[in-house]
């Protein structure tokens, strides 16, 4: 009986976690702008410029192409107003900083991509609030809002 209870609870909880963890849908069609068939991975990108502007932030990075030539890519990121309220400013990420970019290239084939995942070389998420966001109205998510995991 006890086993059945645990199994039942796990099934229900599992179903609930699928619901809870379904990604929140974005508010515009990113697949219209970026090509799902052109994933990009820049393990050693160097930030050259950061624009925290509406409607989206842009992070410009230098990356070395296969031929060894350095190319400048524009990486689209989320909207800046939430970052600002979490204490993240345009100075949080500085020119010269190394980041890892995972995303998708724009459909026109230009050197633009969305920054699906922006991480630091040690795997930490870029923009991760160091000691928490300090925003009393937010739920603190370990590994997202705080460095504790």
């Amino acid at each position, binding site marked *: *009986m006890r086993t059945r*209870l645990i199994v*039942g*609870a796990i099934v*229900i909880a599992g179903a*609930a*976690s699928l619901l*809870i*963890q379904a*990604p*929140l849908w974005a*508010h*515009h*069609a*990113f*697949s*219209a*702008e*970026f*090509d*799902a068939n052109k*994933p990009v991975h820049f393990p050693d990108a160097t930030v050259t410029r950061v*624009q925290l*502007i*509406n*409607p989206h932030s*842009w992070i410009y990075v230098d990356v070395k192409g296969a031929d060894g030539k350095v190319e400048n890519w*524009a990486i689209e*990121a*989320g*909207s*800046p*107003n*939430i*970052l*600002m*309220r*979490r*204490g993240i400013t345009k100075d949080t990420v500085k020119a010269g900083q190394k980041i890892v970019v995972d995303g*998708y290239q*724009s*459909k*026109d084939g230009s050197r*633009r991509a*969305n920054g*699906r*995942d922006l991480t630091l070389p040690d795997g930490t*998420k*870029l*923009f991760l609030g160091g000691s928490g966001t*300090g*925003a*009393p*109205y*937010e*739920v*603190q*998510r*370990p590994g*997202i809002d705080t460095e504790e995991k």
Partner: protein
Amino acid sequence: MRHRYLASIASLAGVVVLVSLAVASMAGQTTSTSKPPALPKPGPAPKTAWGEPDLQGTWFVMEAVPFERTAANANKPLLTDEEVEAADKAKAVNVGRNARNPNSATQDVEGAYNAVFNSILRTSKRTSMIIDPPDGRIPPLTAEAQQRSTPQGRGGARGGAGGGARGGRGNANDNPETTAQSPRCLGVQMPFLPLNTAFAQGTVMEIIQGPKSVGIYMEDDHAGGGNRVIFLDGRPHAPSNLKSVLGDSRGKWEGNTLVVETTNFAQGFRGSNPDTYRMIERYTRVDSHNLRRDITFDDPQTWTRPWTVRIEMGKVDDSRHMIFDSACHEGNYGMTGILIGARKEEAATK
């Protein structure tokens, strides 16, 4: 004993919040218990220099409240403290957008950015924004509105979703006139509800006040904002043929509450008829740190009775109490990218 276990299973199945607790407790082995700082203690509601209640400031929606009450919470206007805590614990362990979609690259692209770019509000005890009717649900449609919502009825003069409303012709991304409202930088729409708090949509507004008018700036995620001017000087509404996306607002004080009637909408709300739809807001500064905004939606051609939502907004420290520059068109490289993408797709199919 057996019955007790069965009862436990039934309650787990029936109450989503308890299910969330189960998820949290399983995943919670590695969770952080770091709590955000406590909210400041409020003082009395201030007055303006000319003696009226002072509504001014930048106001945030600080808790997540569902729009309508779910069936699971029927007859339950408030959650318990334990249920709120369980819901917040479940949110804290949700990896959200940090999880890549391994099955569909297209859906992964649609997910856009990792979870750092959204903001998860704490759970409110309230189970619905709707406070009237008391069941927390939108009242039934009138027979006429039901007819309008049929495919045949939709061909009629419904007022449409003009002025940059999402929709129009199906959110087609191949034309700047038909893409959704947000990537077009068209700013906010009324009634400005906090329906998507993860992206701060409908959650932030600034009020500036004078004896004869009140200005409200509504910041909406990244798509530009919306400026409203509410005249308090007793002037009548604009002629009915003058329509606008934000409508035409007139206000008056009733005790400590500013009552604002808005008409002349270019578009309805939830299928209402813009010619007969009106919105009545009641703004009350509850205390130094809290503002209450009640909105009554009234359209006798659409709903069988008026209905009201309550939005509670608060203040935190000034460093986070700023309106972000809404300049959206200038940096809207996304629109170019979307349209170029559509042209590429067209070329590929030729």
